[in-house]
């Protein structure tokens, strides 16, 4: 059996009556369930022996690719190394065995972790306070926008229903605004890839709740007009929201709070090295400026002279502006604990090196590859940059083909066809945790692929060849997704 080509479903390995367990003889007699509790037919679960089950899942896991396997330059996702010490701390029984309803005096250590990371994140971002409750980045966005909406409503300013979002924004921005019941107004980018302040001005008015910005933006460029944008947004009565998706290059170099942002969400699973991308749940803390502190979601940890306490609202039934509740407890605690470990491991001194090294790695790759790949905006980037496909367009080799060919060489593909500002976008983010050797290896392979595209384009168009499955039919997959085993069986029977 070739493990790499392993392609069975557990259902296909099932044999009726096979068991991976044996129970001791029943000594207690039979107690039958009442009829209404009984299944009408068998559950149709797979029936396998233990060895088969172990091999099945082990073989599948070997088809996985993560940052522990190799280079993962997935733009905008910050696939940095997740230090093992994070996992060690997060698996300590003193943390894993806690229950959120334990008496508060028995969880002081856990609350101290939450309180300390609230302070650490506030200090790193320049905000006044932080909630740890949101479970992911987009959840953080929604929380941040709810805070903004509550702030305006509480002042009796009910006209503010619009949120300005740049055309280069992540799709989650307009989606979060829509979920929050706000209307989206798009602001265009200049040819340099930055928010166009001249396009912004006429959009401003007393109906603007706020503006969402990602900085560095989706092209990896630092938004140089933030002071002016912050002034304009504040003058029209709106609040400025910082999407922290790309915070990594700013770590230790600049703080959103100092730039005039009022609300920020962070992706602990990106910037603060907790697993993501199928590797674990996320966490999307939200930081706020002083005047928004009363609107922070409950529960919230604070420190008193008698220890750490959980502030909660009395009446959770009724929605009021000072009573935003977006999760039952204090966020994804074990993820937060990993991020806290990361922050303490680096310390104040070394966390300042994250941003500069992430920026250096990205610029190095960009400069080394811009002869072979089209660089639409040739300027200093931050943590990532965007190519518009191969420079030589005559070969017909697309960004998709290059991405597939990279898999053959053992690399994860970059983010492709995003942002939508270019037709053949290829977004590369190396992060600070890759060595120069690894980065040089990637650069070399990208040159090889460009050469292959010139000399043997059909080879690249047919890639990948060295993966468990070859080129998939993405049109068929989008039009006719097979999502369950039963559907697969039905389809197979129909086609026979």
């Amino acid at each position, binding site marked *: 059996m070739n493990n790499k080509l392993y392609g069975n479903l557990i259902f296909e390995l099932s044999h009726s009556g096979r068991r991976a367990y044996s129970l001791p003889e029943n000594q207690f007699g039979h107690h039958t369930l009442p009829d209404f509790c009984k299944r009408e037919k068998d559950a149709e679960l797979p029936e396998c022996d233990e060895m088969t089950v172990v091999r099945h899942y082990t073989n599948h896991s070997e088809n996985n690719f993560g940052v522990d396997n190799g280079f993962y330059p997935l733009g905008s996702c910050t696939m940095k190394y997740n230090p093992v010490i994070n996992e060690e701390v997060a698996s300590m029984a003193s943390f894993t065995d806690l229950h959120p309803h334990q008496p508060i005096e028995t969880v002081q250590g856990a609350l101290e972790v939450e309180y300390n990371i609230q302070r650490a994140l506030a200090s790193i971002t320049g905000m006044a306070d932080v909630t740890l409750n949101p479970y992911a980045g987009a959840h953080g966005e929604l929380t941040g926008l709810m805070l903004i909406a509550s702030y305006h409503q509480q002042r009796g300013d009910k006209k503010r229903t619009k949120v300005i979002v740049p055309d280069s924004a992540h799709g989650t921005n307009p989606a979060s605004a829509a979920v929050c019941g706000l209307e989206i107004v798009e602001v265009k980018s200049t040819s340099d890839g930055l928010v166009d302040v001249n396009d912004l001005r006429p959009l401003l008015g007393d109906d603007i709740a706020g503006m969402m910005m990602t900085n560095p933006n989706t092209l990896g460029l630092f938004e140089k007009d933030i002071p002016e944008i912050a002034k304009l947004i504040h003058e029209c009565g709106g609040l400025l929201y910082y999407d922290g998706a790309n915070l990594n290059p700013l770590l230790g170099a600049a703080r959103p709070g100092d730039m005039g942002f009022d609300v920020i969400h962070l992706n602990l699973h990106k910037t603060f090295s907790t697993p993501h991308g199928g590797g674990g749940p996320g966490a999307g803390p939200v930081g706020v400026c002083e005047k928004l502190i009363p609107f922070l979601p409950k529960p919230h940890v604070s420190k008193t002279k008698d220890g750490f306490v959980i502030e909660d609202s009395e009446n959770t039934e009724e929605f009021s502006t000072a009573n935003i509740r977006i999760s039952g407890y204090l966020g994804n605690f074990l993820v937060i604990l990993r991020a806290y470990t990361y922050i303490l491991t680096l310390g104040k001194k070394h966390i300042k090196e994250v941003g500069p090294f992430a920026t250096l790695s990205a610029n190095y790759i960009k400069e080394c590859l811009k002869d072979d790949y089209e660089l639409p905006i040739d300027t200093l980037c931050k943590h990532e940059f965007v190519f518009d496909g191969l420079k030589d367009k005559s070969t017909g080799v697309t960004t998709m083909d290059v991405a597939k060919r990279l898999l053959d060489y053992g690399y994860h593909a970059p983010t492709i*066809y995003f942002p939508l500002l270019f037709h053949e976008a290829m977004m590369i983010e190396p992060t600070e945790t890759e060595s120069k050797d690894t980065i040089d290896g990637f650069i070399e392979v990208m040159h090889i692929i460009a050469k292959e595209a010139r000399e043997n384009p059909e080879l690249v168009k047919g890639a990948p060849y060295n993966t468990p499955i070859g080129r998939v039919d993405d*049109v068929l997959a989008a039009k006719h997704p097979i999502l369950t085993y039963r559907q697969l069986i039905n389809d197979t029977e129909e086609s026979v």
Partner: protein
Amino acid sequence: MAKVIEGLYYSESHEFVKVVGNIGYIGITDYAQHALGNVVYVDMPDVDDDIEIDDDFGAIESVKAASDLKAPVSGKVIEVNENLEDEPGLLNKDAYENWIIKVELSDTAELKNLMDAKAYEEFCAE
């Protein structure tokens, strides 16, 4: 090079209008289908819907992205191209032949704001 056809009206968001009397056939241009890549789904309005110039009247989903369809003119939808429901890929085969909706134009003066073939060709070349 993307195909541009004489006699049609073109918008900056790459929709075309083919006018026959007071009826407009609206679709996406060859340039648009090429940029989108393989189309997998076309979201169309209902017959009798009124569409307003510059408003979204549907969306196109391709393997790369989902894009809104922006109305180049106003009018009442009198027919939608049902072939696209089963075979959205027809847009990739011939974008001009496979119009998306047929509308009764409410104001032919709106056509003045659209580009002709020559202007659109130059617009795409930019």
